[in-house]
Structure formats: C-alpha cells, structure tokens
C-alpha cells in the first residue's frame, strides 16, 4: 500500500468551517495526489504535488487548497466547507501507477 496513511479517517463538520486532511507517506515519493470519490463520478483529481512546495490543480480544485512543506506530508484544506464537499477523499502516490491511502470520509452538515 506504499506506506500511505490518512488522518482523520472520518470527520463530520459544519458548513463554513475550515477542514484540513492529512496524507502521510513513508516511501519518499515525489508525486502525491488528492482525489475525491463520489457515486457516479468515479475518482476526480483535486490537486497534486510533484515535489516539496510544488503543487498544481486538478479537475475539481475549486474550494480546495493544498500544501506540501515536506516530502512525506501532503495536506488538503477546505477553507470553508460546503455540503457539496461531502465525499470520500483519497490520497495516492506515486506515479505512474498509483497506490491509495485508506480514505477519509468527510460529512459536511
């Protein structure tokens, strides 16, 4: 599983609150990815990183920001959570074949 952990695994939060999800990898991979998974949409890329402090937007980046201050950690932040961001969030690394973390189930009420 490429040594990927995610925290928290479950979170319930209220609309308008900030939320940060953490992805941690132990394999020193350069690439890291954040996806969201929703029924009928499959996996959609939110943001990805190709190195420390190097990030770029994916398909559904609006409302999300990321940071990567060290190789092993890739943070996803919802600045002001909305109900449409209720989803399961997966972190993945490396590339081209990806291995996924266990996921974070986020509910925004």
């Amino acid at each position, binding site marked *: 599983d490429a040594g990927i952990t995610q925290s928290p695994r479950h979170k319930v939060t209220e609309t308008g609150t900030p939320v940060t999800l953490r992805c941690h990898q132990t394999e020193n991979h350069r690439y890291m990815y954040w996806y969201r998974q929703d029924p*009928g*949409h499959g996996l*959609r890329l939110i943001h990805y990183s190709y190195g420390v402090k190097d990030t770029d937007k994916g398909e559904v980046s609006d409302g999300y920001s990321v940071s990567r201050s060290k190789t092993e950690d890739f943070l996803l932040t919802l600045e002001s959570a909305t109900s449409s961001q209720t989803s399961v969030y997966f972190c993945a690394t490396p*590339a081209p*074949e990806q291995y996924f*973390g266990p996921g974070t189930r986020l509910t925004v009420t």
Partner: protein
Amino acid sequence: AQSVSQHNHHVILSEAASLELGCNYSYGGTVNLFWYVQYPGQHLQLLLKYFSGDPLVKGIKGFEAEFIKSKFSFNLRKPSVQWSDTAEYFCAVSPSGRDDKIIFGKGTRLHILP
C-alpha cells in the same frame, strides 16, 4: 482532451460466469493503462498495469486485460468469477511520461450472485 469510458456501469453475474469489462480511452499518443479494484468499504487497489510489451497483461486474482491499440481499448477479463470478486472496477489511463495526467473512468460496479 484525454478521457476514459467504461461502458458498463453495473454488471451482475453468477459465480463461474466469464467476465469482460470494457474500457476505451481517447488519447493520440503512447499511454500507460491500469485497472483498479475497490472492494466494499476499502480503498482502490491496483489489479494490473500495462506500460509496454506484450499487450496481454496478467494481474492478481486471475484477472487479465488486453490492450488493443487500434481500438483504444483495454478490456478486463476473468474466465470464471467468484462471489469475492464483487467490487467496483476502475480503468485508468495516463500518457507515458506525464505522471500528472492520470484519468480514471467512472467505474463499473460488479455484483456476483452466489
């Protein structure tokens, strides 16, 4: 733009039936191809991959896939499914050398009747 199409959204089979899940992609250049499986309540796991060479790729748990370049297809097959194959299956494509550009299909939900 690069895209991946999985034709079947939901497939129901009986145990021991043969399986073929379709995957087509649109991209004009050289690609890397993947199939992932997601068992209920779990994360995605790599089932098999194709980078180059023999277009018939064998993966874990008896699955295989064939890359047909002329048809832009990478269909997943298994000769005899088991109840434990109940899961969602995702096809994914990335242009060779473009590690930031992996695109997933919307998935096919497979239900095996015991």
